[in-house]
């Protein structure tokens, strides 16, 4: 795989068992690499939406999209162009808090990043932060000075801007 930028693919897939397996299997078999994947239901109960980020050059990406389209349970695949999409990721971060000064510093940082404190204990703070992956990276860099005890990131999810959307051809 070439050293390209991270690209975003969105897919509408049948909401039934085994579909995630066949998509993941195709990536493995063709020697493509999934950087992150999010899957969830859509407004249509029988369809799920996958948002997959992939690192690779143009040719690789073209093959990823074509090979995904070939899977019978994948109903629609679209490459999302970075300039036309809104992207979000959510992270839950548990930070070590040795003293009161650290606690107030961390809370200040959370406010600057428009995050929220979701759990407090005498020695820790747990926060949620939502945003682009870059914003979350920046926040995590700040938190490392205090000591990150635990971290969970959802991976990127995305929608196109404006009224356009991924539609199934009827």
């Amino acid at each position: 795989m070439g050293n390209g930028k991270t690209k975003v693919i969105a897919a509408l897939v049948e909401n039934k068992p085994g579909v995630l397996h066949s998509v993941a299997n195709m990536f493995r078999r063709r020697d493509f690499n999934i950087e992150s994947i999010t899957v969830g239901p859509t407004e249509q109960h029988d369809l799920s939406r996958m948002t997959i980020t992939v690192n690779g050059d143009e040719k690789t990406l073209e093959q990823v999209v074509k090979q995904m389209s070939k899977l019978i349970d994948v109903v629609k695949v679209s490459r999302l162009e970075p300039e036309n999409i809104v992207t979000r990721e959510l992270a839950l971060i548990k930070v070590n808090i040795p003293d009161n000064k650290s606690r107030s510093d961390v809370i200040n940082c959370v406010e600057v990043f428009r995050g929220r404190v979701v759990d407090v204990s005498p020695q820790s703070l747990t926060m949620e932060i939502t945003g682009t992956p870059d914003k979350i990276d920046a926040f995590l860099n700040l938190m490392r000075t205090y000591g990150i005890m635990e971290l969970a990131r959802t991976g990127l999810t995305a929608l196109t801007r404006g009224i356009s959307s991924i539609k199934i051809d009827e």
Partner: protein
Amino acid sequence: MTKMSGAKALLKSLEKENVEVMFGILGGALLPIYDHFCNSKIRHILCRHEQGAAHAAEGYARASGKAGVCIATSGPGATNLVTGIANAYMDSSPLIALTGQVPSTGTNTSYIIGRDAFQEADIIGITTPITKHNFQLRTAKEIPRTIKTAFHIATTGRPGPVLIDMPKNAQTEITDIDFSNGIQIRGYKPTANPHPLQIRKATELLAESEKPVILAGGGVIAANASTELQKVAELLLAPVATSFMGKGCFPETHPLSLGSIGMHGNPVANKMLCEADVLLAIGTRFSDRSTGKLDSFCAPSRKIHIDIDTAEIGKNVDVDIPIVADAQKALKDLYERLAKLLKKKKISPWTKRIKEAKEQLNPPSKAGSKDLKPKALLQELRKLLPENAVVTTEVGQNQMWAALYFNALKPRTFISSGGLGTMGFGFPASIGAKVACPDRPVVDIAGDGSFRMTEQELATSVTEDIPVIVIVLNNSVLGMVAQWQRMFFKGRYSAVKLGSVPDFVKLAEAYGAQGLRATSIPEFSKAVKKALKSDVTTVIDVPILLEEDVEPMVPPGCGINEQIGDY
């Protein structure tokens, strides 16, 4: 709606798909279904190994153009099908694989899916990367629609294998079955019609071309597009090379035929492809064995690529004009446009060049040689067989000699394991082909190593009365590997000598087949004639020299224009 068991619904659904024959082996998880074969119109051919059943079904499919059906029980029965399914996937053959499975639900909760029950294997997980699609039934009600959908997927677009896993409870369940449910698959719409703009561009490029070459692959056979191909070639006076899988889609005795390309391709085909200014490739995936080193593959030419599978466009070779379409439809459209543009093509310098190259690189064989060389043997075999005889091959030297020296004249008459290179494919495939074409001779060109991998199907061919002819080019060695050890490993033979066992004549006789041996061309000719008259399977053992190489050859890592050795 009628009340019936899932097992009966399955047989009925298969009958509705016009299935006439199935190849398989039963087992515990299939007993309910096999109970219904007794009163079904479908012929069941009991094979001796599930791999044989899968290859036989593929041989049937490729000879007939219909989907082939194989069936195996849960666990080891299903896993034994895997090589055959992978073979059909690589060679894009329409195959339906039915597997028994332990129940998905039931009162005996240690005997259900997911509990590591007796003869349970996750065949869905195992076959996901080697099937076009697979299904696991849950209830009897799903059966009619699932079967319809499976046949639709297997036989349309780029054909391929589809597996249906059938838990035992879905077979035994008695319920109201509705056969009128239609197919519903929104994620599958293969493009069949070519884009008119792309056809126009291709036509213009071809009309301007001074040195056009056509490369036709297995897709031309799958799309039944041989007639259309020949019309386009003759109109353009463009020579036609085929991929190994395309062998037979264009008569190899036609003046415009170059033979097949690739590692052991015809030198004329390899050379002319590299001299072309425009390459029209149809239904081929540019496999590594066809193209050799990619940088030098037809480097100077502009390329048009017609394929039904979008993912094949640009996968290995970058093309100038992609056309995603059914090969027959695209060639028809191309012909119609070209015919308007080109009134009559005059004999050009290119036509002369092709003729010269053929005379130089494919010199006629010396007449009268009685030596039992593979080349002479295969050319003799062509003379002995009618045009419509079906030939299958095993894998290795026998296969490459057949590719080089046995002229295929009609589509679906040359059946071989191209992509996966499965030793043991040819013999069971010949049985399947014979079932599809009972009135035509079917011959498996074999090596001793490959034939031994599925020779147990001799029992199938004898007991089921399916007479075929097996020609064993017997060098008592794994010939192709031995050749590579001679050429690239300083002649150190490692683990390739098979010994002179068994005696293939006696082996054939042990199974109730006819065993013959030939040590010269006249003897071989006599043996084949005898076999053609026989109503039982014949094995012809033909001892050949261990040192016999397949030449010409493109050494690994080289371009197809860097072939060594003479034709």
